[in-house]
Protein backbone atom coordinates (compact mmCIF):
# COMPACT_ATOMS: atom_id res chain seq x y z
CA UNK A 1 0.00 0.00 0.00
CA UNK A 2 2.70 2.48 1.04
CA UNK A 3 4.79 1.43 -1.96
CA UNK A 4 1.87 2.04 -4.23
CA UNK A 5 1.18 5.49 -2.73
CA UNK A 6 4.83 6.46 -3.06
CA UNK A 7 5.03 5.19 -6.65
CA UNK A 8 1.91 7.18 -7.43
CA UNK A 9 3.27 10.35 -5.81
CA UNK A 10 6.49 9.96 -7.76
CA UNK A 11 4.48 9.94 -10.96
CA UNK A 12 2.72 13.18 -10.01
CA UNK A 13 5.82 14.83 -8.54
CA UNK A 14 5.18 18.34 -9.82
CA UNK A 15 1.57 18.44 -8.69
CA UNK A 16 2.38 16.88 -5.35
CA UNK A 17 5.15 19.40 -4.82
CA UNK A 18 2.85 22.30 -5.67
CA UNK A 19 0.28 21.05 -3.15
CA UNK A 20 2.94 20.66 -0.45
CA UNK A 21 4.34 24.13 -1.10
CA UNK A 22 0.87 25.71 -1.04
CA UNK A 23 0.03 24.11 2.28
CA UNK A 24 3.47 24.83 3.68
CA UNK A 25 3.22 28.53 2.87
CA UNK A 26 -0.21 28.96 4.39
CA UNK A 27 0.76 27.03 7.51
CA UNK A 28 4.01 28.99 7.75
CA UNK A 29 2.01 32.21 7.75
CA UNK A 30 -0.04 31.19 10.78
CA UNK A 31 2.98 29.77 12.57
CA UNK A 32 4.99 32.94 12.04
CA UNK A 33 2.17 35.17 13.24
CA UNK A 34 1.62 33.08 16.36
CA UNK A 35 5.29 32.66 17.23
CA UNK A 36 6.25 36.24 16.49
CA UNK A 37 3.47 37.71 18.58
CA UNK A 38 4.53 35.48 21.46
CA UNK A 39 8.18 36.38 20.94
CA UNK A 40 7.47 40.11 21.05
CA UNK A 41 5.32 39.68 24.14
CA UNK A 42 7.85 37.54 26.04
CA UNK A 43 10.82 39.56 24.84
CA UNK A 44 9.44 42.90 25.91
CA UNK A 45 8.10 41.50 29.17
CA UNK A 46 11.61 40.32 29.97
CA UNK A 47 12.99 43.66 28.87
CA UNK A 48 10.68 45.44 31.30
CA UNK A 49 11.52 43.12 34.20
CA UNK A 50 14.33 45.27 35.57
CA UNK A 51 12.22 48.41 35.62
CA UNK A 52 9.87 48.27 38.57
CA UNK A 53 8.65 51.83 38.72
CA UNK A 54 9.29 54.77 36.45
CA UNK A 55 8.75 58.35 37.48
CA UNK A 56 8.71 61.05 34.82
CA UNK A 57 7.23 64.41 34.04
CA UNK A 58 3.47 64.45 33.48
CA UNK A 59 2.72 63.30 29.95
CA UNK A 60 2.18 60.06 28.13
CA UNK A 61 2.55 56.90 30.21
CA UNK A 62 3.18 54.81 27.13
CA UNK A 63 5.84 57.16 25.87
CA UNK A 64 7.61 57.14 29.22
CA UNK A 65 7.58 53.34 29.46
CA UNK A 66 8.68 52.81 25.86
CA UNK A 67 11.50 55.32 26.18
CA UNK A 68 12.88 53.73 29.31
CA UNK A 69 12.38 50.07 28.40
CA UNK A 70 13.19 50.23 24.69
CA UNK A 71 15.27 53.44 24.68
CA UNK A 72 13.01 54.65 21.93
CA UNK A 73 14.10 58.20 21.09
CA UNK A 74 11.35 60.66 21.88
CA UNK A 75 11.25 64.16 23.28
CA UNK A 76 10.18 63.53 26.86
CA UNK A 77 9.31 66.56 28.97
CA UNK A 78 11.71 67.17 31.85
CA UNK A 79 10.67 67.12 35.46
CA UNK A 80 12.33 68.88 38.34
CA UNK A 81 15.53 67.34 39.60
CA UNK A 82 14.15 67.75 43.08
CA UNK A 83 12.01 64.67 42.48
CA UNK A 84 15.16 62.60 42.07
CA UNK A 85 16.58 64.01 45.30
CA UNK A 86 13.37 63.27 47.14
CA UNK A 87 13.17 59.71 45.81
CA UNK A 88 16.83 59.05 46.62
CA UNK A 89 16.19 59.92 50.25
CA UNK A 90 12.89 58.06 50.53
CA UNK A 91 13.21 55.14 53.01
CA UNK A 92 10.82 53.02 50.91
CA UNK A 93 13.19 53.24 47.95
CA UNK A 94 15.98 50.73 47.44
CA UNK A 95 17.56 52.91 44.79
CA UNK A 96 16.52 55.66 42.42
CA UNK A 97 18.53 56.30 39.28
CA UNK A 98 18.13 59.18 36.85
CA UNK A 99 17.82 58.38 33.16
CA UNK A 100 18.80 61.15 30.75
CA UNK A 101 18.10 60.43 27.11
CA UNK A 102 18.60 62.49 24.02
CA UNK A 103 22.12 61.94 22.75
CA UNK A 104 23.43 59.18 20.55
CA UNK A 105 26.69 57.95 19.08
CA UNK A 106 26.87 55.99 15.83
CA UNK A 107 23.18 55.19 16.23
CA UNK A 108 23.57 53.91 19.78
CA UNK A 109 21.65 55.84 22.44
CA UNK A 110 23.77 57.65 25.01
CA UNK A 111 22.04 57.55 28.37
CA UNK A 112 23.07 59.64 31.32
CA UNK A 113 22.65 57.86 34.64
CA UNK A 114 24.44 56.77 37.79
CA UNK A 115 26.57 53.77 38.71
CA UNK A 116 23.56 52.45 40.65
CA UNK A 117 21.69 51.73 37.42
CA UNK A 118 24.76 50.20 35.81
CA UNK A 119 25.09 47.74 38.67
CA UNK A 120 21.34 47.09 38.60
CA UNK A 121 21.51 46.20 34.90
CA UNK A 122 24.75 44.27 35.12
CA UNK A 123 25.71 43.35 38.68
CA UNK A 124 29.07 42.21 37.35
CA UNK A 125 30.55 43.86 34.27
CA UNK A 126 31.63 41.62 31.39
CA UNK A 127 34.88 43.55 31.30
CA UNK A 128 36.45 46.75 32.59
CA UNK A 129 35.14 48.98 35.34
CA UNK A 130 32.34 51.42 36.12
CA UNK A 131 32.79 55.04 35.10
CA UNK A 132 34.45 57.10 37.78
CA UNK A 133 34.89 60.39 35.91
CA UNK A 134 32.54 62.51 33.83
CA UNK A 135 34.40 61.63 30.63
CA UNK A 136 34.01 57.88 30.99
CA UNK A 137 31.35 55.49 29.72
CA UNK A 138 30.16 51.92 30.23
CA UNK A 139 28.76 50.34 27.08
CA UNK A 140 26.05 47.71 26.61
CA UNK A 141 26.96 44.22 25.48
CA UNK A 142 26.01 44.88 21.84
CA UNK A 143 27.84 48.19 21.39
CA UNK A 144 30.82 47.55 19.11
CA UNK A 145 33.32 49.67 21.05
CA UNK A 146 36.42 48.33 22.71
CA UNK A 147 37.63 49.39 26.13
CA UNK A 148 39.57 52.62 25.77
CA UNK A 149 37.70 53.64 22.61
CA UNK A 150 36.45 57.21 22.32
CA UNK A 151 32.80 58.02 21.87
CA UNK A 152 31.69 61.38 20.51
CA UNK A 153 28.09 61.95 21.46
CA UNK A 154 25.69 63.62 19.08
CA UNK A 155 22.72 65.66 20.08
CA UNK A 156 19.62 63.78 18.94
CA UNK A 157 20.33 61.18 16.29
CA UNK A 158 22.31 61.54 13.05
CA UNK A 159 19.26 60.80 10.88
CA UNK A 160 17.32 63.52 12.68
CA UNK A 161 19.88 66.12 11.72
CA UNK A 162 21.53 66.31 15.13
CA UNK A 163 24.86 67.98 15.71
CA UNK A 164 27.94 66.54 17.35
CA UNK A 165 28.93 67.63 20.81
CA UNK A 166 32.52 68.61 20.31
CA UNK A 167 33.05 69.44 23.96
CA UNK A 168 33.54 65.90 25.10
CA UNK A 169 34.64 62.47 23.98
CA UNK A 170 33.79 59.70 26.42
CA UNK A 171 36.31 56.95 27.00
CA UNK A 172 34.93 53.44 27.32
CA UNK A 173 35.96 51.94 30.65
CA UNK A 174 33.65 48.99 30.95
CA UNK A 175 31.19 46.71 29.21
CA UNK A 176 28.02 45.29 30.75
CA UNK A 177 27.06 41.63 30.58
CA UNK A 178 24.27 40.91 28.06
CA UNK A 179 20.81 41.63 29.48
CA UNK A 180 18.67 40.71 26.47
CA UNK A 181 17.09 44.15 26.58
CA UNK A 182 17.38 47.37 24.61
CA UNK A 183 19.97 48.47 27.13
CA UNK A 184 22.47 46.16 25.45
CA UNK A 185 22.71 48.89 22.81
CA UNK A 186 23.05 51.72 25.29
CA UNK A 187 26.12 53.78 26.11
CA UNK A 188 25.87 54.69 29.79
CA UNK A 189 27.57 57.88 30.90
CA UNK A 190 27.44 59.92 34.11
CA UNK A 191 24.25 61.98 34.24
CA UNK A 192 26.18 65.11 35.24
CA UNK A 193 28.18 64.91 32.02
CA UNK A 194 24.92 65.02 30.08
CA UNK A 195 23.67 67.97 32.08
CA UNK A 196 26.89 69.90 31.60
CA UNK A 197 26.98 69.07 27.92
CA UNK A 198 23.57 70.61 27.53
CA UNK A 199 24.40 73.61 29.69
CA UNK A 200 22.04 72.64 32.44
CA UNK A 201 24.44 72.15 35.35
CA UNK A 202 25.63 75.78 35.34
CA UNK A 203 22.16 77.14 35.68
CA UNK A 204 21.73 74.84 38.63
CA UNK A 205 24.81 76.48 40.12
CA UNK A 206 27.46 73.85 40.68
CA UNK A 207 30.24 76.35 41.12
CA UNK A 208 32.93 73.88 42.12
CA UNK A 209 32.78 72.12 38.76
CA UNK A 210 33.14 75.41 36.96
CA UNK A 211 36.43 76.17 38.67
CA UNK A 212 37.93 72.83 37.89
CA UNK A 213 36.97 73.25 34.27
CA UNK A 214 39.24 76.29 33.75
CA UNK A 215 42.12 74.19 32.52
CA UNK A 216 40.11 73.18 29.49
CA UNK A 217 39.08 76.64 28.39
CA UNK A 218 40.43 76.13 24.86
CA UNK A 219 37.87 73.37 24.31
CA UNK A 220 35.07 75.76 25.01
CA UNK A 221 33.56 76.87 21.71
CA UNK A 222 30.52 78.99 21.15
CA UNK A 223 28.46 76.33 22.89
CA UNK A 224 27.13 77.51 26.22
CA UNK A 225 28.16 74.19 27.76
CA UNK A 226 31.42 73.22 29.27
CA UNK A 227 32.39 69.78 30.47
CA UNK A 228 35.30 68.70 32.52
CA UNK A 229 35.99 65.13 31.46
CA UNK A 230 38.33 64.50 34.35
CA UNK A 231 35.97 65.65 37.07
CA UNK A 232 34.93 62.97 39.53
CA UNK A 233 31.42 61.66 39.97
CA UNK A 234 28.92 63.30 42.25
CA UNK A 235 25.92 61.09 42.65
CA UNK A 236 24.20 63.05 45.36
CA UNK A 237 21.20 65.00 44.27
CA UNK A 238 19.34 67.83 45.92
CA UNK A 239 16.57 70.25 45.20
CA UNK A 240 18.84 72.20 42.85
CA UNK A 241 19.52 69.16 40.65
CA UNK A 242 18.78 69.94 36.97
CA UNK A 243 15.70 68.58 35.22
CA UNK A 244 15.58 64.96 34.07
CA UNK A 245 13.20 63.05 31.80
CA UNK A 246 12.80 59.98 34.02
CA UNK A 247 13.83 58.33 37.25
CA UNK A 248 14.01 54.61 37.60
CA UNK A 249 12.90 53.50 41.05
CA UNK A 250 13.45 50.19 42.77
CA UNK A 251 11.01 50.15 45.70
CA UNK A 252 11.81 47.97 48.71
CA UNK A 253 8.48 46.10 48.73
CA UNK A 254 5.51 45.63 46.47
CA UNK A 255 3.39 47.67 48.84
CA UNK A 256 5.95 50.46 48.64
CA UNK A 257 5.79 50.30 44.87
CA UNK A 258 2.04 50.87 44.86
CA UNK A 259 2.28 53.61 47.45
CA UNK A 260 5.05 55.39 45.55
CA UNK A 261 3.14 55.13 42.30
CA UNK A 262 0.12 56.66 44.01
CA UNK A 263 2.19 59.50 45.48
CA UNK A 264 3.99 60.44 42.30
CA UNK A 265 0.91 60.51 40.18
CA UNK A 266 0.24 64.19 40.27
CA UNK A 267 0.03 67.32 38.25
CA UNK A 268 3.71 67.57 37.55
CA UNK A 269 4.88 63.98 37.72
CA UNK A 270 3.81 60.64 36.41
CA UNK A 271 4.54 57.21 37.89
CA UNK A 272 4.04 53.99 35.96
CA UNK A 273 4.78 50.30 36.20
CA UNK A 274 6.30 49.67 32.76
CA UNK A 275 5.10 46.06 32.86
CA UNK A 276 1.54 47.29 33.27
CA UNK A 277 1.84 49.74 30.39
CA UNK A 278 3.26 46.99 28.22
CA UNK A 279 0.42 44.66 29.17
CA UNK A 280 -1.98 47.26 27.85
CA UNK A 281 0.02 47.43 24.65
CA UNK A 282 -0.05 43.64 24.35
CA UNK A 283 -3.81 43.76 24.42
CA UNK A 284 -3.57 45.86 21.27
CA UNK A 285 -0.89 43.55 19.93
CA UNK A 286 -3.20 40.62 20.70
CA UNK A 287 -5.94 42.22 18.61
CA UNK A 288 -3.50 42.63 15.74
CA UNK A 289 -2.51 39.00 16.16
CA UNK A 290 -6.15 37.88 16.05
CA UNK A 291 -6.60 39.82 12.84
CA UNK A 292 -3.43 38.41 11.28
CA UNK A 293 -4.35 34.93 12.40
CA UNK A 294 -7.81 35.32 10.92
CA UNK A 295 -6.18 36.34 7.65
CA UNK A 296 -3.82 33.37 7.88
CA UNK A 297 -6.70 30.98 8.54
CA UNK A 298 -8.64 32.57 5.68
CA UNK A 299 -5.63 31.91 3.47
CA UNK A 300 -5.64 28.31 4.61
CA UNK A 301 -9.29 27.92 3.77
CA UNK A 302 -8.62 29.24 0.27
CA UNK A 303 -5.61 26.97 -0.09
CA UNK A 304 -7.59 23.95 1.09
CA UNK A 305 -10.39 24.81 -1.31
CA UNK A 306 -7.86 25.08 -4.13
CA UNK A 307 -6.35 21.76 -3.13
CA UNK A 308 -9.77 20.14 -3.03
CA UNK A 309 -10.43 21.40 -6.51
CA UNK A 310 -7.09 20.11 -7.73
CA UNK A 311 -7.56 16.71 -6.14
CA UNK A 312 -11.13 16.30 -7.33
CA UNK A 313 -9.89 17.03 -10.85
CA UNK A 314 -6.92 14.77 -10.25
CA UNK A 315 -9.18 11.97 -9.06
CA UNK A 316 -11.32 12.55 -12.15
CA UNK A 317 -8.25 12.07 -14.30
CA UNK A 318 -7.41 8.97 -12.29
CA UNK A 319 -10.82 7.35 -12.51
CA UNK A 320 -9.39 4.75 -14.89
CA UNK A 321 -6.68 3.82 -12.45
CA UNK A 322 -9.16 3.62 -9.59
CA UNK A 323 -11.53 1.56 -11.75
CA UNK A 324 -8.68 -0.79 -12.63
CA UNK A 325 -7.66 -1.19 -9.00
CA UNK A 326 -11.20 -2.24 -8.14
CA UNK A 327 -11.58 -4.43 -11.25
CA UNK A 328 -8.45 -6.39 -10.35
CA UNK A 329 -9.65 -7.03 -6.86
CA UNK A 330 -8.57 -4.18 -4.58
CA UNK A 331 -11.30 -3.77 -1.97
CA UNK A 332 -13.00 -0.40 -1.73
CA UNK A 333 -11.42 0.32 1.64
CA UNK A 334 -7.97 0.01 0.03
CA UNK A 335 -8.89 2.39 -2.78
CA UNK A 336 -10.27 4.79 -0.18
CA UNK A 337 -7.10 4.44 1.86
CA UNK A 338 -4.88 5.04 -1.17
CA UNK A 339 -6.59 8.19 -2.40
CA UNK A 340 -7.04 9.49 1.13
CA UNK A 341 -3.54 8.46 2.15
CA UNK A 342 -1.88 10.20 -0.77
CA UNK A 343 -3.57 13.47 0.00
CA UNK A 344 -3.00 13.12 3.72
CA UNK A 345 0.70 12.46 3.16
CA UNK A 346 0.85 15.69 1.15
CA UNK A 347 -1.02 17.55 3.89
CA UNK A 348 1.35 16.22 6.52
CA UNK A 349 4.43 17.07 4.48
CA UNK A 350 3.11 20.57 3.85
CA UNK A 351 2.21 20.94 7.51
CA UNK A 352 5.67 19.87 8.70
CA UNK A 353 7.41 22.04 6.13
CA UNK A 354 5.15 24.96 7.03
CA UNK A 355 6.00 24.70 10.72
CA UNK A 356 9.69 24.61 9.89
CA UNK A 357 9.44 27.57 7.50
CA UNK A 358 7.25 29.52 9.93
CA UNK A 359 9.66 28.88 12.76
CA UNK A 360 12.61 29.93 10.61
CA UNK A 361 10.76 33.08 9.51
CA UNK A 362 9.91 33.99 13.11
CA UNK A 363 13.54 33.40 14.08
CA UNK A 364 14.70 35.63 11.24
CA UNK A 365 12.27 38.40 12.19
CA UNK A 366 13.30 38.12 15.83
CA UNK A 367 16.95 38.24 14.87
CA UNK A 368 16.47 41.37 12.78
CA UNK A 369 14.40 42.96 15.56
CA UNK A 370 17.09 42.07 18.07
CA UNK A 371 19.70 43.62 15.78
CA UNK A 372 17.90 46.96 15.74
CA UNK A 373 16.44 47.06 19.25
CA UNK A 374 18.72 44.63 21.13
CA UNK A 375 15.59 43.21 22.74
CA UNK A 376 15.91 39.44 22.55
CA UNK A 377 12.62 37.94 21.36
CA UNK A 378 12.48 34.24 22.19
CA UNK A 379 10.79 32.21 19.45
CA UNK A 380 9.25 29.17 21.09
CA UNK A 381 6.29 26.82 20.79
CA UNK A 382 3.88 26.66 23.69
CA UNK A 383 1.37 24.12 24.92
CA UNK A 384 -1.50 26.22 23.57
CA UNK A 385 -0.22 25.50 20.04
CA UNK A 386 -1.05 21.81 20.37
CA UNK A 387 -4.85 22.12 20.02
CA UNK A 388 -4.34 24.38 17.01
CA UNK A 389 -2.14 21.75 15.35
CA UNK A 390 -4.61 18.99 16.23
CA UNK A 391 -7.42 20.98 14.68
CA UNK A 392 -5.46 21.34 11.50
CA UNK A 393 -4.75 17.60 11.37
CA UNK A 394 -8.39 16.77 12.06
CA UNK A 395 -9.44 19.10 9.24
CA UNK A 396 -6.81 17.58 6.94
CA UNK A 397 -8.20 14.12 7.64
CA UNK A 398 -11.72 15.26 6.79
CA UNK A 399 -10.81 17.28 3.72
CA UNK A 400 -8.67 14.53 2.22
CA UNK A 401 -11.61 12.13 2.59
CA UNK A 402 -13.71 14.11 0.11
CA UNK A 403 -11.88 13.09 -3.09
CA UNK A 404 -11.46 9.56 -1.74
CA UNK A 405 -15.18 9.12 -1.29
CA UNK A 406 -15.93 10.73 -4.64
CA UNK A 407 -13.52 8.28 -6.25
CA UNK A 408 -15.77 5.37 -5.30
CA UNK A 409 -18.93 6.91 -6.68
CA UNK A 410 -18.66 5.27 -10.10
CA UNK A 411 -18.92 1.55 -10.83
CA UNK A 412 -15.55 0.07 -11.82
CA UNK A 413 -16.75 -0.36 -15.41
CA UNK A 414 -17.74 3.30 -15.74
CA UNK A 415 -14.51 4.36 -14.05
CA UNK A 416 -12.54 2.28 -16.55
CA UNK A 417 -14.30 4.00 -19.44
CA UNK A 418 -13.55 7.47 -18.03
Amino acid sequence: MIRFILADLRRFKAGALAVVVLIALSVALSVTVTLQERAVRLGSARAAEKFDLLVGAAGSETQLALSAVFLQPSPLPLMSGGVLAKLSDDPRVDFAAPVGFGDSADGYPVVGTTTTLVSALSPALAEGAFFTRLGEAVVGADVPKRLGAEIKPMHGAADEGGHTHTEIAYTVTGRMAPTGTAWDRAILVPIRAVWQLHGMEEKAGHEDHDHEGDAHEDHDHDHEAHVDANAGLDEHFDAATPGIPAVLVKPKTVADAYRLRQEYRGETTLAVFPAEVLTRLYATLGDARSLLLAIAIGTQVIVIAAILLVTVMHVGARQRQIGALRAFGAPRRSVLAIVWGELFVLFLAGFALGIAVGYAAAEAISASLAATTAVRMPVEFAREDVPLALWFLFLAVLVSLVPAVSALRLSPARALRA
Partner: protein
Amino acid sequence: MLSLDIADLTMRFSGLETPVLAIGRLHVPAGGQLAVTGASGSGKSTLVNAITGLERVTGGTVSWGGTDMTRLPTGRRDAFRAAHIGLVMQDFHLFPGLSALENVVLPIRLSRRLEPAERERALQLLDTVGIARPQQAIETLSRGEMQRVAVARALLARPGVIVADEPTASLDGRTGEAVADLLVELAGAEGATLIAVTHDPALTERLDRRIGLAGGRIVEDSAKALAA
Protein backbone atom coordinates in the same frame (compact mmCIF):
# COMPACT_ATOMS: atom_id res chain seq x y z
CA MET B 1 -13.36 -24.17 -12.10
CA LEU B 2 -16.66 -22.38 -12.45
CA SER B 3 -19.59 -22.81 -14.78
CA LEU B 4 -21.45 -19.78 -16.10
CA ASP B 5 -25.23 -19.58 -16.27
CA ILE B 6 -26.93 -16.52 -17.65
CA ALA B 7 -30.71 -16.21 -17.51
CA ASP B 8 -32.78 -13.33 -18.93
CA LEU B 9 -29.86 -10.95 -18.63
CA THR B 10 -30.66 -7.38 -19.67
CA MET B 11 -28.50 -4.30 -19.43
CA ARG B 12 -30.19 -0.98 -19.98
CA PHE B 13 -28.66 2.47 -19.92
CA SER B 14 -30.83 5.36 -18.86
CA GLY B 15 -32.17 7.29 -21.84
CA LEU B 16 -31.97 4.32 -24.19
CA GLU B 17 -35.20 2.64 -25.26
CA THR B 18 -33.79 -0.78 -26.15
CA PRO B 19 -31.46 -2.71 -23.83
CA VAL B 20 -27.79 -2.72 -24.92
CA LEU B 21 -27.62 -6.35 -23.92
CA ALA B 22 -30.36 -8.99 -23.83
CA ILE B 23 -29.34 -12.62 -23.42
CA GLY B 24 -32.06 -15.12 -22.66
CA ARG B 25 -29.95 -18.12 -21.78
CA LEU B 26 -26.27 -18.96 -21.96
CA HIS B 27 -24.46 -21.84 -20.31
CA VAL B 28 -20.73 -22.37 -20.27
CA PRO B 29 -19.65 -25.55 -18.43
CA ALA B 30 -16.88 -25.49 -15.85
CA GLY B 31 -13.56 -25.58 -17.66
CA GLY B 32 -15.22 -24.65 -20.94
CA GLN B 33 -13.90 -22.10 -23.40
CA LEU B 34 -15.95 -19.41 -25.09
CA ALA B 35 -15.06 -16.76 -27.62
CA VAL B 36 -17.39 -13.78 -27.93
CA THR B 37 -17.20 -11.88 -31.19
CA GLY B 38 -19.09 -8.99 -32.70
CA ALA B 39 -18.68 -5.53 -34.16
CA SER B 40 -18.01 -2.62 -31.87
CA GLY B 41 -21.22 -1.54 -30.17
CA SER B 42 -22.58 -5.08 -30.33
CA GLY B 43 -22.57 -5.33 -26.52
CA LYS B 44 -19.35 -7.34 -26.04
CA SER B 45 -17.86 -5.06 -23.42
CA THR B 46 -21.21 -4.74 -21.68
CA LEU B 47 -21.31 -8.52 -21.47
CA VAL B 48 -17.84 -8.56 -19.87
CA ASN B 49 -18.92 -5.93 -17.36
CA ALA B 50 -22.08 -7.85 -16.53
CA ILE B 51 -20.50 -11.27 -16.00
CA THR B 52 -17.57 -9.85 -14.00
CA GLY B 53 -19.74 -7.63 -11.83
CA LEU B 54 -17.96 -4.48 -12.92
CA GLU B 55 -21.39 -3.05 -13.65
CA ARG B 56 -24.68 -3.73 -11.91
CA VAL B 57 -27.08 -5.58 -14.22
CA THR B 58 -30.56 -4.17 -14.72
CA GLY B 59 -32.31 -7.52 -15.08
CA GLY B 60 -31.81 -11.29 -14.99
CA THR B 61 -29.17 -13.39 -13.29
CA VAL B 62 -25.51 -14.18 -13.80
CA SER B 63 -24.45 -17.27 -11.86
CA TRP B 64 -20.91 -18.53 -11.44
CA GLY B 65 -20.92 -22.07 -10.15
CA GLY B 66 -24.28 -21.47 -8.55
CA THR B 67 -23.52 -18.07 -6.99
CA ASP B 68 -25.82 -15.40 -8.38
CA MET B 69 -23.53 -12.41 -8.74
CA THR B 70 -26.31 -9.96 -9.40
CA ARG B 71 -27.63 -10.41 -5.87
CA LEU B 72 -24.37 -9.61 -4.14
CA PRO B 73 -23.91 -6.12 -2.71
CA THR B 74 -21.07 -4.07 -4.21
CA GLY B 75 -18.44 -5.03 -1.64
CA ARG B 76 -19.19 -8.75 -1.80
CA ARG B 77 -19.31 -8.57 -5.59
CA ASP B 78 -15.85 -6.95 -5.63
CA ALA B 79 -14.60 -9.64 -3.26
CA PHE B 80 -16.14 -12.44 -5.36
CA ARG B 81 -14.45 -11.07 -8.48
CA ALA B 82 -11.12 -10.78 -6.65
CA ALA B 83 -11.36 -14.39 -5.50
CA HIS B 84 -12.81 -16.15 -8.54
CA ILE B 85 -12.41 -14.12 -11.72
CA GLY B 86 -9.08 -13.40 -13.37
CA LEU B 87 -9.31 -10.35 -15.64
CA VAL B 88 -7.15 -9.59 -18.67
CA MET B 89 -7.88 -6.29 -20.42
CA GLN B 90 -6.99 -4.79 -23.76
CA ASP B 91 -5.14 -1.89 -22.08
CA PHE B 92 -3.36 -4.09 -19.51
CA HIS B 93 -4.06 -1.63 -16.67
CA LEU B 94 -0.71 -2.19 -15.05
CA PHE B 95 0.57 0.39 -12.59
CA PRO B 96 3.69 2.32 -13.54
CA GLY B 97 6.26 2.90 -10.85
CA LEU B 98 5.96 -0.69 -9.67
CA SER B 99 7.91 -3.74 -10.83
CA ALA B 100 6.43 -6.65 -12.77
CA LEU B 101 6.28 -8.74 -9.60
CA GLU B 102 4.70 -5.91 -7.59
CA ASN B 103 2.04 -5.51 -10.25
CA VAL B 104 1.19 -9.20 -10.12
CA VAL B 105 0.76 -9.23 -6.35
CA LEU B 106 -0.78 -5.75 -6.03
CA PRO B 107 -4.45 -6.90 -5.85
CA ILE B 108 -3.63 -9.26 -2.98
CA ARG B 109 -1.40 -6.76 -1.24
CA LEU B 110 -4.12 -4.17 -1.32
CA SER B 111 -6.58 -6.46 0.41
CA ARG B 112 -4.41 -8.39 2.86
CA ARG B 113 -0.94 -9.63 3.74
CA LEU B 114 0.85 -11.46 0.95
CA GLU B 115 1.73 -15.04 1.93
CA PRO B 116 5.25 -16.25 1.03
CA ALA B 117 3.63 -19.06 -0.98
CA GLU B 118 1.72 -16.48 -3.04
CA ARG B 119 4.91 -14.60 -3.74
CA GLU B 120 6.51 -17.87 -4.84
CA ARG B 121 3.57 -18.54 -7.12
CA ALA B 122 3.77 -15.03 -8.59
CA LEU B 123 7.45 -15.54 -9.42
CA GLN B 124 6.68 -18.93 -10.91
CA LEU B 125 3.84 -17.51 -13.01
CA LEU B 126 6.07 -14.70 -14.28
CA ASP B 127 8.61 -17.35 -15.23
CA THR B 128 5.90 -19.37 -16.99
CA VAL B 129 4.71 -16.38 -19.04
CA GLY B 130 8.31 -15.64 -19.96
CA ILE B 131 9.24 -12.60 -17.87
CA ALA B 132 12.91 -13.13 -17.06
CA ARG B 133 13.36 -10.25 -14.62
CA PRO B 134 10.44 -9.93 -12.21
CA GLN B 135 11.98 -6.86 -10.55
CA GLN B 136 12.04 -4.88 -13.78
CA ALA B 137 9.97 -1.69 -13.73
CA ILE B 138 6.73 -2.27 -15.59
CA GLU B 139 6.99 0.81 -17.82
CA THR B 140 10.24 -0.47 -19.32
CA LEU B 141 8.62 -3.67 -20.67
CA SER B 142 7.40 -4.14 -24.23
CA ARG B 143 3.63 -4.27 -24.85
CA GLY B 144 3.74 -8.02 -25.36
CA GLU B 145 5.57 -8.46 -22.08
CA MET B 146 3.10 -6.19 -20.34
CA GLN B 147 0.18 -8.37 -21.42
CA ARG B 148 2.07 -11.43 -20.20
CA VAL B 149 2.46 -9.80 -16.81
CA ALA B 150 -1.29 -9.06 -16.88
CA VAL B 151 -1.97 -12.75 -17.61
CA ALA B 152 0.22 -13.75 -14.66
CA ARG B 153 -1.69 -11.30 -12.46
CA ALA B 154 -5.04 -12.73 -13.60
CA LEU B 155 -3.93 -16.24 -12.62
CA LEU B 156 -2.34 -15.51 -9.25
CA ALA B 157 -5.42 -16.08 -7.08
CA ARG B 158 -6.16 -19.41 -8.86
CA PRO B 159 -9.45 -18.06 -10.26
CA GLY B 160 -12.15 -20.44 -11.46
CA VAL B 161 -12.56 -18.39 -14.60
CA ILE B 162 -10.50 -16.08 -16.74
CA VAL B 163 -12.31 -13.30 -18.54
CA ALA B 164 -10.24 -11.64 -21.23
CA ASP B 165 -11.47 -8.48 -22.95
CA GLU B 166 -9.72 -8.08 -26.33
CA PRO B 167 -6.45 -9.42 -24.85
CA THR B 168 -4.60 -9.34 -28.18
CA ALA B 169 -6.18 -6.29 -29.81
CA SER B 170 -3.43 -3.87 -28.86
CA LEU B 171 -0.60 -6.22 -29.79
CA ASP B 172 0.94 -6.93 -33.19
CA GLY B 173 0.20 -10.24 -34.93
CA ARG B 174 2.95 -12.48 -33.62
CA THR B 175 2.95 -11.08 -30.12
CA GLY B 176 -0.84 -11.42 -30.08
CA GLU B 177 -0.60 -15.05 -31.12
CA ALA B 178 1.90 -15.78 -28.38
CA VAL B 179 -0.38 -14.21 -25.77
CA ALA B 180 -3.37 -16.13 -27.18
CA ASP B 181 -1.42 -19.37 -26.87
CA LEU B 182 -0.43 -18.51 -23.34
CA LEU B 183 -3.99 -17.73 -22.30
CA VAL B 184 -5.42 -20.97 -23.66
CA GLU B 185 -2.55 -23.06 -22.37
CA LEU B 186 -2.57 -21.61 -18.88
CA ALA B 187 -6.34 -21.62 -18.53
CA GLY B 188 -6.21 -25.29 -19.42
CA ALA B 189 -3.30 -26.03 -17.09
CA GLU B 190 -4.89 -24.13 -14.19
CA GLY B 191 -8.27 -25.65 -14.92
CA ALA B 192 -9.99 -22.32 -15.34
CA THR B 193 -12.99 -21.59 -17.51
CA LEU B 194 -11.93 -19.14 -20.25
CA ILE B 195 -14.16 -16.49 -21.72
CA ALA B 196 -12.54 -14.18 -24.24
CA VAL B 197 -14.13 -11.25 -26.01
CA THR B 198 -12.17 -10.87 -29.20
CA HIS B 199 -12.23 -10.24 -32.90
CA ASP B 200 -8.85 -11.87 -33.32
CA PRO B 201 -9.27 -15.09 -35.38
CA ALA B 202 -5.98 -16.39 -33.98
CA LEU B 203 -7.60 -16.48 -30.55
CA THR B 204 -11.10 -17.45 -31.67
CA GLU B 205 -9.99 -20.56 -33.48
CA ARG B 206 -8.12 -21.80 -30.41
CA LEU B 207 -11.32 -21.85 -28.33
CA ASP B 208 -13.98 -24.59 -28.23
CA ARG B 209 -16.98 -22.44 -28.84
CA ARG B 210 -17.76 -19.07 -30.36
CA ILE B 211 -20.82 -16.86 -30.05
CA GLY B 212 -21.47 -13.77 -32.13
CA LEU B 213 -23.20 -10.71 -30.75
CA ALA B 214 -25.13 -8.04 -32.66
CA GLY B 215 -27.32 -5.37 -31.14
CA GLY B 216 -26.85 -6.92 -27.73
CA ARG B 217 -28.24 -10.31 -28.74
CA ILE B 218 -26.61 -13.65 -29.56
CA VAL B 219 -26.93 -14.01 -33.32
CA GLU B 220 -24.45 -16.82 -33.87
CA ASP B 221 -23.45 -19.81 -31.77
CA SER B 222 -20.94 -22.38 -33.04
CA ALA B 223 -22.33 -24.98 -30.59
CA LYS B 224 -25.82 -24.67 -32.07
CA ALA B 225 -24.46 -24.59 -35.60
CA LEU B 226 -22.74 -27.90 -34.97
CA ALA B 227 -25.81 -29.39 -33.38
CA ALA B 228 -27.97 -28.26 -36.30
